[in-house]
């Protein structure tokens, strides 16, 4: 199992390096997603399966989709089809695909290696000091309940802030309102 950790660690570092040195934002985003997937495998190996799933669902899924959305929004112009064709050149997606393939092989290896009987599986999970999602949830809603509510406040503030900042500037046509804006 140790070798899996080292492979994923090297893949995460390589993908992150490719991300910060990339020129095109979309390519860098691909490498960032691959890096997050590699870190997710590491979380699984460290005995945090719930966090590994959340990393894929929320980080690599939801947050990265926001990035893609904004990058696509900033690049709105006539030659979109040409750009999209350029994005599908083999040289661009081979790197991330290779890294993802290695991660997939690691996952397949872990699945195949899994013993058949539930008793043995539980023994291995105990030996790895795996922390089940239930323990996390129980702690989250007893000891840390106040922090959970603070996180909810933060998310609401984030939504309102994003809505306010994302608004387009209002153009007023009336002379009086224009003068008022100038004086402000």
């Amino acid at each position, binding site marked *: 199992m140790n070798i899996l950790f080292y492979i994923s660690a090297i893949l995460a570092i390589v993908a992150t390096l490719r991300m*910060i040195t990339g020129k095109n934002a979309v390519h860098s985003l691909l490498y*960032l997603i691959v890096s997050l997937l590699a870190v997710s495998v590491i979380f699984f190996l460290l005995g*945090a399966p719930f966090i590994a799933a959340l990393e894929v669902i929320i980080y690599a899924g939801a947050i990265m989709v926001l990035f893609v959305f904004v990058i696509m929004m*900033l690049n709105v112009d006539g030659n979109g089809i040409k750009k999209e064709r350029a994005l599908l050149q083999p040289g661009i997606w081979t790197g991330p695909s290779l890294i993802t393939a290695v991660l997939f092989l690691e996952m397949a290896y872990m699945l195949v290696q899994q013993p058949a009987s539930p008793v043995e599986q539980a023994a291995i999970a105990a030996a790895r000091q795996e922390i089940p999602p239930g323990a996390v949830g129980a702690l989250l809603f007893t000891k840390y309940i106040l922090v959970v509510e603070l996180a909810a406040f933060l998310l609401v503030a984030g939504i309102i802030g994003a809505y306010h900042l994302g608004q387009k500037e209002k153009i007023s046509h009336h002379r009086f309102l224009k003068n008022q804006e100038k004086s402000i």
Partner: protein
Amino acid sequence: MTIPTEQQILLAVILFCIGLTGVLVRRNVIFMLMSVEVMLNAAGLAFIVGGAAWGHADGQVMFLFILAMAAAEVAVGLALIIQLYNKFKSDDADKASDMRG
């Protein structure tokens, strides 16, 4: 699992440093925001490593809060990027170098 905790922390440190380098070196705001994501993720990894080393679930709970914070931060940051782009027609952070109070 017999991986030394030092090596796991070392991975978190390396990822954090790569993210920090990205924030300091790149001038494209989208890249800067992505590097901040890498840094937050590395901090979360350090929490998970700590939780795994002690056998407590607290590290994973902390990661959940980092996740929520990262989501809120990205939403506001991307809205700011859109505003910057509307104003300066560019995603270069150095273009927004003068303030008007």
